[in-house]
């Protein structure tokens, strides 16, 4: 039982930076790691982007509406600045875009009330002029949509509160006109499971589910969101819809007749757009992990897990956000802002995921060439004769004698172990991690060698130290040691610093950053002075 052995065994203690307080809740859940793995690039110099949509067909280009222009980008291109196709045949601001389910046609509505259909499959030239011009709306069109399971029809709606269904092949007049909304219709979506049903959301606070087979201007289901509805989206199973209006996103169960399932109130300003996102790409289990991405005028993008009713990730952008879209292959996420920037988040898919797919496809062709199966027997004349059996794996019953594991020491630990204190300090200063620098400094202090090290630094290394001090001596976690050290350095090396212009510049910078810190401290004290009487009064009650 008594095993004091461990205490007497030689141990090395590498210097470690001080522990940081762990947040109570883990800030980096696997999910938020996933969402922050989208690397943002920007497409700038546009005018506000009210609509973004991904082509359903690979390689999933996306179309962005900005001003009277529609640009189609390929997310694979790097850099993204130049669109592959630009369509400019609009008279007014484009408000809404939609790809057909095969990705070859693009419908666009503009504020002049015109809905146009373009051929985007044939390249840039073909898209210049519209295949169809569907004119019937008298007020601006706000919503155009190609149903997900229908290739022939287009749904459109606009400020005239009318929802129109068009047969694109047939011609210029709408097949159906649905009157039911009493205010601007701003959004809609088609069911992913049924070709005949779709929903629209309007500023009259309602979301209506329409069935084109009925066609009597009576919605099948109607739900009241309570705020002007900015966007609606069907969830992938088709039984639920998410609606965005005001500061909230609400989830409705259509199968049970339009019951409110839950409401997400995470945004501080109007939620402008929704889309369905998916985590991962591959195994079936992960396919079910759908999330709703919402963006709002407060500049936040939030990821909502509607199965657990939790916001699982939240991200801030520096401008009001108007539109969001998520590519079906889970590689790209685009967000359009009101000041004309598109944030394109691209995720690198791991090699193995891609490879896995390739191998599945071409499995059939991968028959290996016949190999020599007999083992080559080496003769003593061959040098490999003497190396035979070295790569042999141990079998089950073998008793393994492992070589004692060598402890991996970092550069500064090795130097400290050899009592090369000055070099250890320099090596860690050249590194990136301020925590390590502090740890080495503390170790040197406990060996009573820090002052000697500082006094022995040559001018070049002294510069390194001064740069480090300027950068970190006002950081509260490090200032305890670094402030004292800075003072000591100045005292000890005053002659060199006077002599060198470069060092003096560093000292000036150091002085500036300390002055700044003092200013902050003073203002904080002022605030404390204001608050503390209030707290006292509050405490008395």
């Amino acid at each position, binding site marked *: *039982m*008594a*095993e*004091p*052995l*461990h*205490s*007497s*065994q*030689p*141990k*090395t*203690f590498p210097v*470690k930076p*001080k*522990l940081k307080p*762990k947040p*109570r*809740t*883990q800030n980096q*859940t*696997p999910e938020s790691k996933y969402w922050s793995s989208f690397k943002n690039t920007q497409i700038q110099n546009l005018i506000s982007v009210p609509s973004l949509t991904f082509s359903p067909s690979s390689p999933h280009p996306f179309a962005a509406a900005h001003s009277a222009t529609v640009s189609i980008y390929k997310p694979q291109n790097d850099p993204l600045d130049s669109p592959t196709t630009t369509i400019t045949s609009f008279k007014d601001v484009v408000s809404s875009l939609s790809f057909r389910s095969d990705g070859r046609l693009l419908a666009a509505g503009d504020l002049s009330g015109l809905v146009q259909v373009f051929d985007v499959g044939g390249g840039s030239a073909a898209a210049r002029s519209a295949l169809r011009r569907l004119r019937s709306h008298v007020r601006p069109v706000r919503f155009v949509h190609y149903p997900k399971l229908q290739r022939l029809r287009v749904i459109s709606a606009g400020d005239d509160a009318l929802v129109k269904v068009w047969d694109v092949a047939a011609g210029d007049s709408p097949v159906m006109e649905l009157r039911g909304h009493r205010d601007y219709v701003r959004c809609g979506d088609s069911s992913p499971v049924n070709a005949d049903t779709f929903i629209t959301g309007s500023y009259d606070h309602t979301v209506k589910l329409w069935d084109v087979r009925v066609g009597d201007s009576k919605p099948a289901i109607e739900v009241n969101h309570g705020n002007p509805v900015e966007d609606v989206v069907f969830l992938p199973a088709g039984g639920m819809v998410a609606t965005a209006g005001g500061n909230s996103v609400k989830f409705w169960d259509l199968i049970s007749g339009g019951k409110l399932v839950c409401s997400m109130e995470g945004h501080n300003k109007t939620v402008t757009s929704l889309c369905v996102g998916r985590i991962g790409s591959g195994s079936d289990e992960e396919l079910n992990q759908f999330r709703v991405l919402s963006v709002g005028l407060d500049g936040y993008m939030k990821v909502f897990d509607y199965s657990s009713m939790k916001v699982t990730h939240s991200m801030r952008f520096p401008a009001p956000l108007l539109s969001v879209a998520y590519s079906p292959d889970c590689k790209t996420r685009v967000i359009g802002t009101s000041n004309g920037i598109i944030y394109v988040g691209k995720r690198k898919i791991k090699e193995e995921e891609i490879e896995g797919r390739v191998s599945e496809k071409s499995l059939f062709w991968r028959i290996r060439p016949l190999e020599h199966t007999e083992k080559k027997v080496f003769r003593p004349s061959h040098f490999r004769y003497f190396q035979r059996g070295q790569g042999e794996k141990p079998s089950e019953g073998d008793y393994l004698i492992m070589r004692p594991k060598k402890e991996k020491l970092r550069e500064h630990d090795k130097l400290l172990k050899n009592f090369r204190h000055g070099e250890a300090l320099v090596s860690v200063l050249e590194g990136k991690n301020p925590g390590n620098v502090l740890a080495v*400094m*503390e170790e*040197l*202090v*406990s*060996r*009573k*060698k*820090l*002052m000697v090290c500082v006094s022995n630094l040559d001018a070049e290394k002294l510069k390194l130290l001064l740069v480090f001090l300027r950068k970190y001596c006002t950081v509260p976690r490090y200032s*305890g*040691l670094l402030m*004292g*050290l800075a003072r*000591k350095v100045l005292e000890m090396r005053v002659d060199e610093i006077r002599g060198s212009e470069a060092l003096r510049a560093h000292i000036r910078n150091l002085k500036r950053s300390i002055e700044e810190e003092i200013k902050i401290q003073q203002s904080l004290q002022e605030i404390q002075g204001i608050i503390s009487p209030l707290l006292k009064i509050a405490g008395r009650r």
Partner: protein
Amino acid sequence: MIKGGQNYVSSPPAFSNDGNRVLVCTGNTVSIFSSSTGLQVSSLEGHTAPVTSVVVVPATDILCYCWTSSFDGTVRYWDFSVPETVKKLDLGMPIFSMVIPSFLGSPEENNAKTANVFAYVSVHDGKAWQIRKCSLTNYRKVGKLVLKETERPEPLIISPSGKFLGIKHKRKLHIWKLPRVESDVAVAKKITLHHTKTITVLAFHPTERTVAAGDVTGRMLIWRGFGTQKFLDHSGSNNRISMNDGEDKHGVRQNDDAESCSVWHWHSAGVCLLSFSPDGAYLYSGGTEGVLVLWQLDSGKKKFLPRIGSPLLYFIESPDPSLSLISCADNQIHMLKTPSMEIIKSISGIKPPLSYQEICESFSGKAAFDCTSGLVAVQTENYGIQFYSLLANRGVYEVQVCERNHQPADEVTVAVTLVELSVDGSIMGTVEIKLPEEGVGGLVSLKFWDLDSDTKRFSVSTVIYEPHRDAHISAIAFHPTHRMAVSSSYGGDFKIWVCKEGDIQQKGQALQNSGWMCHAVGSYKNKAMRAATFSADGSVLAVAADTVITLWDPDKNVLMAVVGETPTPIVSLAFAGKSEYLLSVSHGLKPRLSVWSMSKLAMAWSYRLQIEAVSPAIDSSYFAILALLPESNERAFKGNGIILLFNATDPVPVASMSVTKAKGGGLAFLKGDLSERAVIDGKTSQTLLVYINGDREYVIFDPYDKEGHELSIIRQDVPLEETGQFGYSSIYGELPKFDLQKDKTASVISTASERPWETIFTGSTHMLPPLTKLCSVFLESLLEKRTALAE
């Protein structure tokens, strides 16, 4: 009464003849440990003063006799297998060291002279330490002949051949060649070797006339061929002298009688340990820096066993060549596997008190007691905490508080200043400080540790850097029931910490996220707070703010009352059990023990005593104090301290005991269920008090028991029989038992089954049993066995 915590390293230990036992001088007794398990087997009790040396009589493995000498002036002869005293000689003078040369050397010589055994002893005759000779077989008196007088006692070193005796004396080595035939009057010839530095240790080569010595600067000197002129026979010496005159004696100081002297230097601080290997090819050396160095004598090549962590004192070879033993100054005896130089086992005594007590004002060398499991936690020199079982009298384990290697020779810059255990022993709080270098980089950190319920070991739960900014922590106290702690600082505030338990379920695995957080901060007029304690039910927190006591509600952090005033700052507080009385201790010019009544918020009574430690009994209103007696009173009592037992309501002590070495001592009551294991004369004692003195020796006794019954422990059965392997088996493992009577079929048939012919061909062909064997089995199986039916 249970005594424990003895010093194991006061003098060199010895191995028994078979190498299975280690005899260690532990105060007035000699403890015998098993070398394979490291646990105590028995002890030799009888001496009335510390035992100074133990010499095992060399004989066959079975005989277990030894001689011991002690400061009480007696030499005893023991049969330590029983164990009992066989013979006792009274020399009448304190003996510091004893060697018996005739036990060594070649056996046939021994046999010739067994009639007469002489010992050389270092005794004190009232003025100085003298080296004298005495006969152990027919003892009458210590020999009159004084070989040497020294002011300080010097250990006697005997050469492994038994021919030479040496001592170090300041900067000299004195070496005697012992007479071939010992008698009371035989005179030994003596030479002296000189050095320029104070010599700390010496060792003789087992076969050659070579002596090694270490000095305080870390140098080692090796004189070869000492005593060529004086010790050799006269016939040959004439030639030698002429030869030596011709060649210069390399490295030997002017007139010293040696052929050559070489100096080796590796140790950075004084050499404490020197020992030649039994074959004389290697030399072991060790010093203050705690590194054992193995020198190859011919080439001077070195091998190291680094970071033992404490100054090395003695190195003893066992009869088994693969095992040896190092004694370290931190009261540990390590068993060393010699060729590979690895520590395989340790006899772990309680670690000695720290040498750097005066490092800062917040330093407290007080031990913390775990009353429920009978453990004491003491700070160790290597920045750790040792947990020592009071009842089993051995070290249980250690935890490392600061992650640093301890270099005994270095200046102290890091220290564990405070250790505190919660009442149930499940939480530990430690405070460590880093001293700043020229005002830069000092750090105080507070650590909370949780007891792992499976392994019964502490592991770090929370680290708090600079809990009270740069102010040092004066005390930690734990809430008796909740997971709450308070730390008070000299900077004038105290903080209440609570442990938040929270499990975050993340992907199936429970991620324990428990940690200590600051719950509240309090201060009283910015006065330095030196002590804090919770009441027995945890509803009141008492914090000493300089000279007054402030009472707080720990949950709401509301100041409830301020009590009284003492002339000097209060340094310690304790509630007297479940009673309404609070004890305060203040030091300084006007030391005082005050008892405050909480119901009246006033002082009940007080004594003007220098109090070292206070311990309230857990269940009753009794409490015990350890008071230091003023110098003048020391003669009236036996020791320099006194333990007084009070009832809180009554200023008249219930019981008192005088103790020695009270400075730096501690007191604690052990809990009832634990003391059931300790039995006093057949009846169990409900309350036990532990007193641990300044040297960390402790005694456990029943304070209410006036008669002072002997308290004996029902010791858990220690596996006495060693399972260690020696010689051939230690290298190649146990040979399989060779049994001639063994049934041969059993060794041949690979699978034993009812019907062997079915499985027989699964084995390899050479394992096939002969047909004749098979046949009988086969036929037997065809024949139905009816024996069972017949019965």
